[in-house]
């Protein structure tokens, strides 16, 4: 196993208020063939961290400090042109909203094929065959390549997003809450699919979620974020069985269990501060 992605001291602030650290000194390492889950509530900075890896921070935000090493290369020093070579090819990304991330006026075959044309120069029959294979891989019949996003269900759209993100066989897949908008059974299928793809393609996966149930299903390593900072990180078994930080424990406690054995406990922020 080799080091795939390494973040050190990543700090993100608004341009206008450099003292307000939305992400503060975040460091962790992801190895290829493993899944790291970033867990936290809304506003914890988990999505910003993922966006910063890709150099896709929203307007008005800056990476104030820190490094992002991807395969031994400093991404933050790369030019836009170099980043465009990497994004979509060696780093794939799945966004949260399958309803809004697809272009409604282009058929899904075109949208999946786009990155293959751009990055690998595939065209014509070769491209068609590859797109068909990708669709089959995510469990959608190849004939649906001519369908438009509105003709697909939420789960199918998310599968299309996955097919797009793995089209160029990336070594790193970043998934930002890819299943929160989906039904439980569909969620289980998508998680299963991602786990299979990870093994088959020896991908590293950076998976963002707020649900510890999902973490238990998919993670090898866990990074817990709270108010922009990493409060705890470690292998999934350790985090689930003996969480050290009170926030991790609180976050675990507010997940309802299917057995109904433990009482629901909301997070007591006053006590944490």
């Amino acid at each position, binding site marked *: 196993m080799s080091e795939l992605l390494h973040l050190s001291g990543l700090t993100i602030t608004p341009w206008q208020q450099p003292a307000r650290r939305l992400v503060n000194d975040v460091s962790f390492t992801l190895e290829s063939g493993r899944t790291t889950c970033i867990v936290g509530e809304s506003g914890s900075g988990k999505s910003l961290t993922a966006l910063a890896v890709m150099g896709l921070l929203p307007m008005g935000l800056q990476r104030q400090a820190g490094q992002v090493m991807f395969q031994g290369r400093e991404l933050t020093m790369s030019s836009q042109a170099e980043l465009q070579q990497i994004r979509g090819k060696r780093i794939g990304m799945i966004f949260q909203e399958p309803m809004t991330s697809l272009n409604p006026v282009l058929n899904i075959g075109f949208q999946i094929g786009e990155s293959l044309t751009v990055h690998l120069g595939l065209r014509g029959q070769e491209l068609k065959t590859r797109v068909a294979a990708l669709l089959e891989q995510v469990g959608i019949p190849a004939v649906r390549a001519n369908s438009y996003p509105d003709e697909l269900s939420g789960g199918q759209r998310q599968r299309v997003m996955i097919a797009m993100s793995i089209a160029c066989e990336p070594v790193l897949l970043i998934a930002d809450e890819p299943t929160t908008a989906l039904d439980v059974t569909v969620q289980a299928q998508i998680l299963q699919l991602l786990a299979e793809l990870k093994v088959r393609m020896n991908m590293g996966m950076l998976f963002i979620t707020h649900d510890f149930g999902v973490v238990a299903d998919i993670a090898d390593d866990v990074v817990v974020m709270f108010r922009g900072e990493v409060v705890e990180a470690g292998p999934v078994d350790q985090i689930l069985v003996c969480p050290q930080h009170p926030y991790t424990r609180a976050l*675990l406690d507010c997940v*309802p*269990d299917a057995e109904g054995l433990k009482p629901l406990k909301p997070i007591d922020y006053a006590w944490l501060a």
Partner: protein
Amino acid sequence: MADIILSAQGLTKIYRQRSGRFGFGSSQIKALDNVSLSLKQGATLAVVGESGSGKSTLARCLLQLQPLDAGEVQFEGRELGRLTGTELRGVRRHLQMVFQDPFASLNPRMKVGEIVAEGLLIHKLGNATTRRDQVLRMLQRVGLAAPDMDKYPHEFSGGQRQRIGIARALVLEPKVVVCDEPVSALDVSIQAQILLLLKELQLEMGLSYLFISHDLRVVRHMADEVMVMHRGRIVEQGEVAQVYADPQHEYTRNLLNSIPGHHRMATATT
């Protein structure tokens, strides 16, 4: 039985849609197929199913927000389908709903105080002073403060908006509250707060809940009885503990197996 507050028999709802080339054909979808239920006074009945299973249609049909194709709904022994418009409006005070999306279900142009007071105005309850008092008390009860009455919905977070939605429904002191996925748009940490609030209010006000959800973990904590819906039909129903421990229908088993982390979380948390 005396303690049944809301019941329904043989509810059927068919949606017709245009289909085929240029929409010249038409096809039918049975959103509700012979659904019966009974909700006990002070209890929580959960309706579980995936999108498209008909659970939201069921909620709307029970409250007479949508016409039924067949079936009857009784509230406190009165047949809702036979009531006149005026009578139905009177009954509606006792049948309230908490909606799923806290962003879409509050009017962005109204202040929070106005949103919560609107039901009282419509039902002509009290005068301006007592209404203001009631609204304030309700908002405080759900965890908001007096200055919040003059704010607009966009100034609040998702969890706070859902509290406003709950206050809006409960200020009328209803008897039955239909909660349509009340926490599915919220973070898990906020979910727990809202669920506990709903439980507390149920005890305090003697509410009966029809709790619609696709999340079986949440249902386990909230409900006394559960109905599993699949394609407009009820495939299984019973007491929560029993259904979870010994699911009879294949679809229920599938749903239970899909709960994220159900293998590991059970052993991990103590």
